[in-house]
């Protein structure tokens, strides 16, 4: 108990704070102690307004639009005697527009409220006085101990204490968070496994010290202190709100973050909203209208000052004249007539413009884009979905497309295709790309013969008699093979599901590559069938006789997880016979950096193989292992545990510790996985480029793979002049081998600069001649890093803008975003990013339009995107039909609006000249007030929905890249016509 007093005292000390304020301390199962911290309750509210704030806040939102504010001002003016029109003239349109918008807001908010209420009032079991009691979610408090049953959703962010499963593990589904449907394991700390029953759980007293609420879904740092014993907590013990419990009867957990402080809620807060270029242009147009209005008023007002004269005796100006018509106060006359005319000409501002455009866009996206059968993918039952209706017309102005490769251009259906084991290449198949290359070279491709006993399964498309059916045992390097297959079977984070037989098992993997590799191991006779948090069970058939199998269990000691900076994954395991091995698989570059000396021949041969795989368009991974001496391992493990329990920079420190053991590796071989092109990709790309859209491929793959994919997609061809800036040159390698980081950086920068300059000098000679070849640029991530530096950025931009296709390979997610914003800001063109994985999110958000492929790599890209489609080829319809039509329609709508308002108001303006500039009105009050909001509302919307060009299927005629100035130009033309009317 004494331990609990200390932190609260430090809090009262205020500024001195010996304890970091970045920590929160939670007393489990102790409501009174937590009460002092005033943690927020668990009820959530996603509504924008409540009953009292709705009117003021809603109106405030509405009046942030200039047009509405202007009409408010004019309405007030028209209640004064200076107004020639009845106040209703301006009040009616304003109130109709406001009413419409407010009803829409209220309706949306009401739905959100209903939703919140259902969530807040759902029930959960909370530990109270030795028993579970059902309580509403909203009554939950930090520190409460609760029970969640199978398939139930977690009401708050929980710390997992115990589970009905053995070893305190439970399975969760995170579909609500990231859309990934594969189950994930969470495991309680061993110390808390017992607190399953309410009787036991009541006794639990612990203190959680953890980071303050934040929005990072995949990190968590904290410690659990029980009886003065500190245990590190990791994301592995955390159950996030929004996830659901699977395959587990129930779990017991303690609430650590509630309500709006949960990670999922903190994530949903700030969605960056994109405004379309057309909308921004509209603001300018409206400003132009305002200045037109002002000059009209000024002209009329000056006229009235000149006109007014006592000679018009019938106007009765000789005695007691009000200021507005008093010939002795001409200046005042001008000022007041100005006000009069402002109210009179108010119809020039299209007050219903925004409302109409929103309506049109909403229908366009919800009825046309979402329901287009041409963009409906029947196999996966996925329609296209416009997640925002702001950007419809922006789709029609796209000039640059930045595309991810894997899962976007390709299917992301990974198939184990080839392998290289111990310096020997296996696998007889031929990829589509290889066939394409061969065809280009003019070699006849013979139909690949398939051996009769070849095994084909989704994810496994490998055929080589030397390895299949256990034949590998007769290979000279069968020990390497065994090591290779074991590495495949052990080094992964895949979860098996279903029956434990090779036929019925299903693998849940974070990435399809992983699943393909485990599947391959299964097919080679190393069947991974069960995983517990500490063990992996593999049914091995490496004994001499076929059909005889042996179940082997490997103890998993440490898992060094994969992330995009590490680009590798390692597992430390202990064989049943006590052998300690680190298995590592990862990208070739990172593995080669960490190989031990000796074995140079093998390394060289494998590198050759890797290059061959790459040029065949295959995705490669290197496998390596390291035997660990027990004492070496023990000392390392201590460091690992401290790093794991550190509260700050845990990720970074874990990475550092991993470096310590992931070295002196011994190469086993390499895997090659095929990822087939999606259907219709080459045609789609060809159509898009005929429409003048430039396509850039940004991929994490190797340069050879990227180039080959680009060939296969029609992005590159042999007629093109290719500029290749690669870091894989001998000169650079030489400098790299010397190992001095600053020297490498300097040299690389020089090299990149030199190449850029050379290409820039070369480019015009191709570019200027009309019949000359098109240009293409290929650049890899390392070079890109230097090329993106401020000093070289301009050169890169000029060069790449002259190229008809650009391929960037080995780029990180951040670089993808940088390249996108380079073009977006540097070239001021409309950009579109398309991708399917979490690594594309930054690029999707950076571009004007982000498109997510709803594919296999989870939903993160889709969640961040503006439009989601199922297949890359649907881009053609989305851009060339919907985008172009929306753009043309909205341009017409805007022009229509300006035309009708100008025609209406200018008539009034000319009439002013015939009335002695007195501001006499030309129209009836009601006619004027309803003209915009009723009489002409529908025709405009109809143009916005139905207007069509004759070109759904006319390919070339659908070219989109109309000059972005078109809108301005045309609308000015229309304005002039309005004047003439």
């Amino acid at each position: 108990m004494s331990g609990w007093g200390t932190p609260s005292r430090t809090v009262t000390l205020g500024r001195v704070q010996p304890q970091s304020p970045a920590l929160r301390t939670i007393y489990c199962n102790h409501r009174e102690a937590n009460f002092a911290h005033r943690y927020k309750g668990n009820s959530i509210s996603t509504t924008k307004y409540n009953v009292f704030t709705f009117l003021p806040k809603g109106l405030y939102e509405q009046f942030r639009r200039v047009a509405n504010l202007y009409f408010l001002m004019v309405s007030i003016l028209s209640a004064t005697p200076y107004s020639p029109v009845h106040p209703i003239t301006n009040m009616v349109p304003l109130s109709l527009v406001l009413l419409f918008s407010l009803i829409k807001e209220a309706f949306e908010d009401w739905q959100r409220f209903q939703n919140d209420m259902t969530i807040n009032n759902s029930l959960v079991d909370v530990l109270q006085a030795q028993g579970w009691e059902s309580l509403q979610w909203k009554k939950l408090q930090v520190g409460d101990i609760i029970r969640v049953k199978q398939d139930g959703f977690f009401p708050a962010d929980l710390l997992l204490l115990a589970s009905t499963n053995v070893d305190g593990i439970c399975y969760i589904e995170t579909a609500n968070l990231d859309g990934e449907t594969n189950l994930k394991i969470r495991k309680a700390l061993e110390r808390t496994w017992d607190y399953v029953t309410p009787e036991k759980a009541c006794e639990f007293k612990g203190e959680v010290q953890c980071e303050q609420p934040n929005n990072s879904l995949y990190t968590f740092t904290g410690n659990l202190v029980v009886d003065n014993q500190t245990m590190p907590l990791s994301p592995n013990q955390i159950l996030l709100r929004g996830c659901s419990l699977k395959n587990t009867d129930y779990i017991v957990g303690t609430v650590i973050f509630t309500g709006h402080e949960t990670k999922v809620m903190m994530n949903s807060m700030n969605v960056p909203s994109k405004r379309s270029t057309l909308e921004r242009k509209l603001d300018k147009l409206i400003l132009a209208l305002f200045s037109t209005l002002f000059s009209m008023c000024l002209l009329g007002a000056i006229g009235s000052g000149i006109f007014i004269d006592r000679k018009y005796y019938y106007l009765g100006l000789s005695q007691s004249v009000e200021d507005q018509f008093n010939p002795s106060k001409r200046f005042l006359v001008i000022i007041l007539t100005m006000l009069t005319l402002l109210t009179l000409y108010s119809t020039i501002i299209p007050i219903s413009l925004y409302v109409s455009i929103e309506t049109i866009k909403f229908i366009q996206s919800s009825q046309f884009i979402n329901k287009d059968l041409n963009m409906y993918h029947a196999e996966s039952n996925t329609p296209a979905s416009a997640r925002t209706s702001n950007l419809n017309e922006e789709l029609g102005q796209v000039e640059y497309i930045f595309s991810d490769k894997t899962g976007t251009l390709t299917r992301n259906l990974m198939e184990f295709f080839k392998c290289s084991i111990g310096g020997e290449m296996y696998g007889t198949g031929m990829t589509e790309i290889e066939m394409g290359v061969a065809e280009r070279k003019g070699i006849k491709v013979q139909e690949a013969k398939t051996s009769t006993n070849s095994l084909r399964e989704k994810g496994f498309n490998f055929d080589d008699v030397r390895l299949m059916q256990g034949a590998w045992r007769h290979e000279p390097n069968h020990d390497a093979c065994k090591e290779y297959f074991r590495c495949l079977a052990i080094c992964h984070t895949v979860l098996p599901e279903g029956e434990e037989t090779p036929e019925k098992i299903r693998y849940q993997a974070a990435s399809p590559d992983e699943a393909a590799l485990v599947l391959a191991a299964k097919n080679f006779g190393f069947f991974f069938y069960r995983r517990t948090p500490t063990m992996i069970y593999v049914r091995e058939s490496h004994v001499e006789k076929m059909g005889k199998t042996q179940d082997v269990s490997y103890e998993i000691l440490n898992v060094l997880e994969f992330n995009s900076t590490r680009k590798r994954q390692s597992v430390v395991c202990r064989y049943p016979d006590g052998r300690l091995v680190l298995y590592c698989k990862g990208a070739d570059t990172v593995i080669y950096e960490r190989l031990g000396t000796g074995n140079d021949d093998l390394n060289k041969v494998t590198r050759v193989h890797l290059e061959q795989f790459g040029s065949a368009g295959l995705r490669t991974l290197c496998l390596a292992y390291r035997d660990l001496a027990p004492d070496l391992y023990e000392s390392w493990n201590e460091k690992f545990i401290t790093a794991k329990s550190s509260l700050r920079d845990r990720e970074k420190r874990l990475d550092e510790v991993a470096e310590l053991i992931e070295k002196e590796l011994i190469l086993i071989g390499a895997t090659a996985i095929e990822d087939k092109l999606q259907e219709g990709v080459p045609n789609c790309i060809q159509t898009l480029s005929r429409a003048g859209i430039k396509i850039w491929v940004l991929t994490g793959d190797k340069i050879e793979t990227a180039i080959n994919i680009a060939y296969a997609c029609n992005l590159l061809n042999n007629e093109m002049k290719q500029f290749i800036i690669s870091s894989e040159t001998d000169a650079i390698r030489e400098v790299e081998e010397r190992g001095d980081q600053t020297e490498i950086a300097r040299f690389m920068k020089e090299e990149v600069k030199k190449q850029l300059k050379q290409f820039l000098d070369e480019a015009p000679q191709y570019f200027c001649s009309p019949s000359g070849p098109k240009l293409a640029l290929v650049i890899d991530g390392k070079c890109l890093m230097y090329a993106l530096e401020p000093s070289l950025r301009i050169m890169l931009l000029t060069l790449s803008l002259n190229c008809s296709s650009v391929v960037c390979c080995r780029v990180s997610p951040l670089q993808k975003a940088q390249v996108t914003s380079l073009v977006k800001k540097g070239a001021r063109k409309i950009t579109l990013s398309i991708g399917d994985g979490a690594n594309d999110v930054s690029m999707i958000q950076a571009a004007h339009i982000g498109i997510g492929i709803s594919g296999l790599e989870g939903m993160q890209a889709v969640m961040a995107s503006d439009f989601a489609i199922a297949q890359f080829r649907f881009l053609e319809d989305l851009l060339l039909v919907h985008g172009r039509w929306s753009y043309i329609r909205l341009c017409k709508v805007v022009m229509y609006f300006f035309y009708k308002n100008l025609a209406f108001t200018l008539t009034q303006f000319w009439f002013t000249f015939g009335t002695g500039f007195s501001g006499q009105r030309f129209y009836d009050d009601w006619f004027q007030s309803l003209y915009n909001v009723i009489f002409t509302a529908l025709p405009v919307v109809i143009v916005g929905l139905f207007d069509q060009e004759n070109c759904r299927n006319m390919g070339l005629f659908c070219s989109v890249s109309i000059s972005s100035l078109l809108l301005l130009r045309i609308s000015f033309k229309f304005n002039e016509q309005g004047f003439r009317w």
Partner: protein
Amino acid sequence: MTDTDRGTQRDRHSAFSLFTQQSLPACKPVLTPEWVIMTFLFIGFIFIPVGLVTLRASHSVVEIVERYDIGCVPEPFRIDKVSYIQDDSIPKNCSLSFKVPKYMKAPIYIYYQLDNYYQNHRRYVKSRSDKQLLHGQNEHGISSCQPVEVNNDRPIIPCGLIAWSLFNDTFTFIRNRAELKVNRKNIAWKSDRGHKFGKNVYPFNFQNGTLIGGGKLNPTIPLSDQEDLIVWMRTSALPSFRKLYGRIEKDLDVDDVVVVHLMNNYNTYSFGGKKKLVLSTTSWLGGKNDFLGLAYVFIGSSSVTIAVVFTLLHLLSPRHYEDTSYLPWN
């Protein structure tokens, strides 16, 4: 959400589904040269005859316009016309004569025309009380009549600037020494007489002030019968306007000499307005107005010209349909 309406064949052809697929039947004209030329020719063939018929109707109208505001001021007063018109002691009699150029069939409408007279000025238009005109004595409804609402603390009926500035020139027509009868009934709108001006409202305290703007009214006749006032109170839209004075219900022959005796009372001299007397017959299309016919003929003949030019261009340098090299982005 959308899958339900994807399914069956029947749904696929429902109107809503056609709408969402954006494949509703639509008119998609392709503007080939033939079509464009035919359209222009068609417009020409429709518009020219319509224009000619309209012009003919307009020409059948006989219109006599005589400006009299200057001619009716005796020579000695022409330097200061304003003081002439404001001097009540000088008789304002005047006569003018004209020869009828063409046979004019009855009814012949008599208008007076004022130019540069802003009857549509906001201050002027506002200065009336419709309530008072219909219901009479009403102390409250006359604030809108400023600045002519009361005189000697008693309300004026009809109040306001419009009534105050009532036009009061009068005309008598003489042909061959005999007076031509002018029908001055039914010159105002029937609805105005019946529903806007009261049958029991009599002029009161009208034109009794120091400043007299225009004509006076007979206080024994109710407003609904004061047709000159009713015509005047229906203010004109433009600063140049005609108002109906009466009708001559006898035909006038060619070369008939008509002498008009008029009382030139109304002051347009202070602001430089013109006064004209207009006699006009009507056709089925109304009064004399050449503009409409000319506009039709002009549009029609331009269309024909354009059609001819396009035909020549098309014959001399024909252009292939679907030739992409003309597209703007090439």
